[in-house]
């Protein structure tokens, strides 16, 4: 056995012999002339290091500590004895050092993936949900405005028609704690989205697809539900809370964890926003019911989206992805059908809201008149094909 003792005052090595006495490590000088004789209680020894290559370093006492370096077959034995008094984490670290490398990598991968998924799918959303509750509507509105200002360069707003949409919304009679503002985007894209704090954007392409006023009302209900349920704000909060842990982890583990977490986060956002879309559909239905608007309008809207081939799932830009990941329209029709079938309260008398209907007719009439303009028609065709 090779054991070398350092007294803490000099780097001079002293060869020693170690003996495992009961609860105490006995250290004695190897040379006859040596006067080294130490007794270290195991509970006061620190295992400074261990390694794959049978080397253990023990230290004892306050600054400057005495040390013993053990090399060879006894290194592991003494490490194990002393570690019985050490913390659990230290014992784990020892096991890691001694594990078969392949098994170690496999185990680590499994543990890493499961803990990180647990965090991303359960812990981060929960924290985000709680954090969102604490943030007042006024702050949410401010943040939403800032976001919308940032993206406004890709939205070509028609302010005259926006006024009409707002009037339409008023005429439907929906209610919200938020100050709802609606923009009409002159774009053939079939899309609509809601920004935190009450800004709703409806694309011309989508209005063109509607075949009845209450389908547009259903769309409004859907987007309003996003606003009232604070969906995109929750989404952002989740992103931030996932990001926080990434930034802490990447202090030293730069490459690895950030990449993994980024991937996990994207998948998660997709799945999650589908849950939000579903909620918006169903809550939107409740809004229709409250205003005695035809519940099947929501179903018809889905039908239109489906037949317009690319549905609402048009991705404007990658930074807007979270605003536009919708479940497949087919599934949406299925669960709306189910809801109407199972819930008798949807069996109510509905009627047209004259004011809303006339605004919708006006908007549609505008398309008709534009249709006669050959240039516009051409443009419309080309872009439809492109989509």
């Amino acid at each position, binding site marked *: 056995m090779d054991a070398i003792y350092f007294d803490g005052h000099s780097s001079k090595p002293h060869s020693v012999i170690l003996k495992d006495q009961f609860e105490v490590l006995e250290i004695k000088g190897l040379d006859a002339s040596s006067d080294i004789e130490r007794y270290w209680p195991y509970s006061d020894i620190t295992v400074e290091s261990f390694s794959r290559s049978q080397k253990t370093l023990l230290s004892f006492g306050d600054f400057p500590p005495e040390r013993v370096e053990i090399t060879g077959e006894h290194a592991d034995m003494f490490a194990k004895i002393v570690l019985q008094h050490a913390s659990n984490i230290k014992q784990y670290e020892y096991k890691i050092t001694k594990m078969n490398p392949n098994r170690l990598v496999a185990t680590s991968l499994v543990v890493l993936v499961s*803990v990180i998924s647990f965090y991303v799918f359960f812990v981060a959303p929960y924290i985000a949900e709680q954090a969102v509750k604490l943030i007042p509507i006024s702050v949410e509105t401010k943040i939403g405005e800032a976001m919308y200002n940032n993206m406004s360069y890709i939205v070509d707003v028609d302010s005259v028609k926006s006024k009409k949409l707002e009037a339409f919304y008023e005429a439907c009679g929906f209610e919200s704690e938020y100050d709802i503002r609606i923009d009409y985007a002159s774009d053939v894209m079939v899309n609509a989205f809601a920004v935190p704090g009450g800004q709703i954007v409806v694309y011309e392409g989508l209005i063109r697809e509607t075949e009845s006023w209450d389908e547009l009302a259903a769309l409004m209900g859907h987007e309003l539900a996003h606003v009232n349920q604070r969906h995109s704000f929750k989404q952002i909060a989740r992103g931030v809370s996932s990001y926080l842990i990434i930034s802490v*982890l990447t*202090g030293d583990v730069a490459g690895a964890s950030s990449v993994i977490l980024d991937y996990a986060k994207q998948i998660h956002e997709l799945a999650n926003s589908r849950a939000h879309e579903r909620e918006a559909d169903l809550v939107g239905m409740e809004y229709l019911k409250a205003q005695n608007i035809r519940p099947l309008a929501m179903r018809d809207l889905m039908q239109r989206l489906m037949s317009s081939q690319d549905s609402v799932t048009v991705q404007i830009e990658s930074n807007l992805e979270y605003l536009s990941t919708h479940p497949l329209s087919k599934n949406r029709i299925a669960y709306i059908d189910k809801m109407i079938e199972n819930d008798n309260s949807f069996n109510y008398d509905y009627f047209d809201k004259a004011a809303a209907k006339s605004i919708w007719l006006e908007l549609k009439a505008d398309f008709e008149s534009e249709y006669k303009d050959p240039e516009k028609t051409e443009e419309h065709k080309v872009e439809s094909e492109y989509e």
Partner: protein
Amino acid sequence: MDNSFDNNKNEEKDLFLYFSGDGATYFGIVALNVVLTVLTLGLYYPWAKAAYRKYIWNETEFLGSRFVFNGTGREMFKGFIIAYVIIVGMYITLTTTSLFGVEAFFVIGFYFAFMLLIPFAIYGAWRYRVSRTSWRGIYFSFEGSFGEFLRLFLLHGLLSVLTFGIYSPWMRVKLQKFLFENTRIGNLYLDFKADGGELLGINIGGYIFSVITFGLYLPIWVKNRFNFTINNTFIDDGDQAIRLHSTLKNGEAWSTLFINGLLLFFTLGLAYPWTFMRKMDMYFNNVTIPGEFDYDNLAQASQMFDDATGDEMSDIFDLDLGF
């Protein structure tokens, strides 16, 4: 490795550092620490950092004895909190005051105060790391005063600004010299004697060739900078000062770093523990330490030092100390 302390005197002048970390073990340590960090919502981070450092230090050997990182998670946690409070506090004050439209000089003053944190972070990080390192029970220590470091930083920083950065290699040399010559273990001091012009040449050449070769030259640039640091570092016992030297060659630097890049790319970063170990291996195993000194009779000189504030601050600023 046998007890090489017996034959280190003058038989063979050159002594080597020996690094033996392996990717699988490091990956296991990373995994354990990531798990604990996630479960504690990030609070475990300083302990994780201590564990990484302990591993790296422990796998580095000189004359058969391993280096030890004596820092603890608790110390670093304290530093972590203090550094965060200072930096976040400054940010909050700055943003709230700028909302109320305060005078420009106030804002400039703030930026200046912020600037002062950088030398503190560099100084604090070096001091903490050095003084928490030991070998054969002998602690390294750092004796430079912050006032002196700050003076150097401001003076040479100003020169760098005035020369649009051309002077910055000389500034780097000055700061490195200050940090090294105040670092000691027992009766041995480090020293750094270099020509800023050489570093400027390395950087200009490195930049131009890296652009021309679409980055293929980067490993060579890294090698040149590493060799510049090592080859200009001295160990001094008061009687004589002898150079370290680096045996790192273009081929090794290039194959190590290029393959690292490929590994990281194709594993989406998961190979990080291995690439990091490969890099450490390349660095440590290429450092030659002069054998003229008596490493068996270093005397303990330093006091206990455990303030990690600057170290944590350097982390927040993401400063690369380069050594």
